[in-house]
């Protein structure tokens, strides 16, 4: 075989390799088709995933949103919400990330979008819910079990040695003093005021107009629509129509799978003696 034949033969091999590898790898490593990403928030919202809880972490939701944000094919994001809420910080983290996104975000409230879940929905550009969805429950709370009465009944004393009089605030083994109660109430009210203002600003509502829901009541989708807490009653079709009005045509929805990390240390997480405000 002379050199010229060898060169032609090798060129052929190189091009064959290019064709086969590009076609094969392009099929295997393809980005999800679709111009609208769907991110699910469909359980209680917390800071971290735990094997023992069915909740969803703010980190995994934010990671999914970041993935949608950085995908140039994605023109809009649908947040599928079916959640009773969650911790204040986790809900706030997601809501603030949604606010910072440059892409259109539509919240789709399914059975329930209450408390922290509604906080997140209110950060989106458009909210669609069913007329019978449960929405609202705007407020914050803090709760804990108290075993003081039971302990006294059985003659068990709780002896407290702490560096400060408020160090053991919220301990389940003693009742709250009036001072402790006022401190915890202030924390709850701070979270609540933040929530209320966040909803008012992002939904473009006056604080007076949402005065009726300050008591933390739950509303149906229809009631929420009448109070302008929801933009449209409907389902996926209404979302697609809304996106088409924004010139996002040929809507093709693909779901971003949220990472469910398993961490053995989460088994050891223990927070029963710690109380903190939640939006649920």
């Amino acid at each position, binding site marked *: 075989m002379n050199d010229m034949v*060898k060169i032609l033969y*090798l060129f052929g091999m190189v091009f064959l*390799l290019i064709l086969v590898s*590009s076609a094969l*790898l392009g099929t295997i*490593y*393809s980005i999800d088709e679709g111009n609208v990403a769907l991110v699910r928030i469909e359980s209680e919202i917390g800071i971290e995933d735990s094997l023992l809880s069915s909740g969803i972490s703010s980190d995994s939701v934010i990671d999914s949103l970041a993935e949608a944000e950085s*995908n*140039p094919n994605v023109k809009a994001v649908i947040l599928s919400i079916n959640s009773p809420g969650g911790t204040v910080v986790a809900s706030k983290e997601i809501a603030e990330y949604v606010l910072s996104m440059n892409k259109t975000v539509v919240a789709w409230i399914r059975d329930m979008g209450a408390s922290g879940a509604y906080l997140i929905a209110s950060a989106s550009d458009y909210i669609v819910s069913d007329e019978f969805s449960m929405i609202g429950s705007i407020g914050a709370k803090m709760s804990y079990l108290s075993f003081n009465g039971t302990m006294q009944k059985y003659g068990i004393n709780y002896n407290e040695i702490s560096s400060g009089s408020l160090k053991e605030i919220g301990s389940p083994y003693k009742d709250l003093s009036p001072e402790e109660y006022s401190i915890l109430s202030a924390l709850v009210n701070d979270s609540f005021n933040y929530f209320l203002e966040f909803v008012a600003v992002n939904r473009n509502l006056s604080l007076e107009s949402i005065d009726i829901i300050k008591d933390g009541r739950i509303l149906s989708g229809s009631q929420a629509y009448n109070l302008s807490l929801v933009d449209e009653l409907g389902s996926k079709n209404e979302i697609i129509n809304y996106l088409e009005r924004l010139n996002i045509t040929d809507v093709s929805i693909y779901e971003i799978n949220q990472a469910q990390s398993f961490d053995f240390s989460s088994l050891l997480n223990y927070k029963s003696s710690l109380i903190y405000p939640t939006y649920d």
Partner: protein
Amino acid sequence: MEDLIFLPTRNIRVVADFNLRALAYIIDLLFFFFMIIMPFSSIYYELSGINAEEISIEDSINNPKIFTILAVGYFACMIIFAFYLISFEYLLNGSIGKKMLNLSVVSKSKELSLKQVIVRNLTKSVLFNLLAFDCFLMLFDQQKRRVSDFLANTLVVSNRKIIKKFGVVNEL
């Protein structure tokens, strides 16, 4: 009509200098860009569903899927480039760039083996990041060898024709 004068010549091999070798590599890189990267990426990105022109550096870092697609594409191109260099050098003693500049890869011991060719081409393709380190030795070595030439026991020579010293005869 002018008369042609044929002078007797003989082939000699001299150690290829740095500039010639660099030029040969640049020719190979042009081949790599136009004949490997361009056809590969046009098929690969089309099937992957990403528009490479719209992707920013930030997107490629932040989006793990895009990062994976780009990384796989990069390594695939590098492996094809390695295949090109290795197959041409093993079967023809030189890549296209070397052939065009009359350079050849020779073994310092026996005949050039596949193992030697693979070793000397790793830093020119898959381990591209180490190329500068690999070439550093050329500045000091009389035979202008890279570190990988040392490891593979190979040498790059320039094939030249010279006129035979006592063979110049007027045969008109």
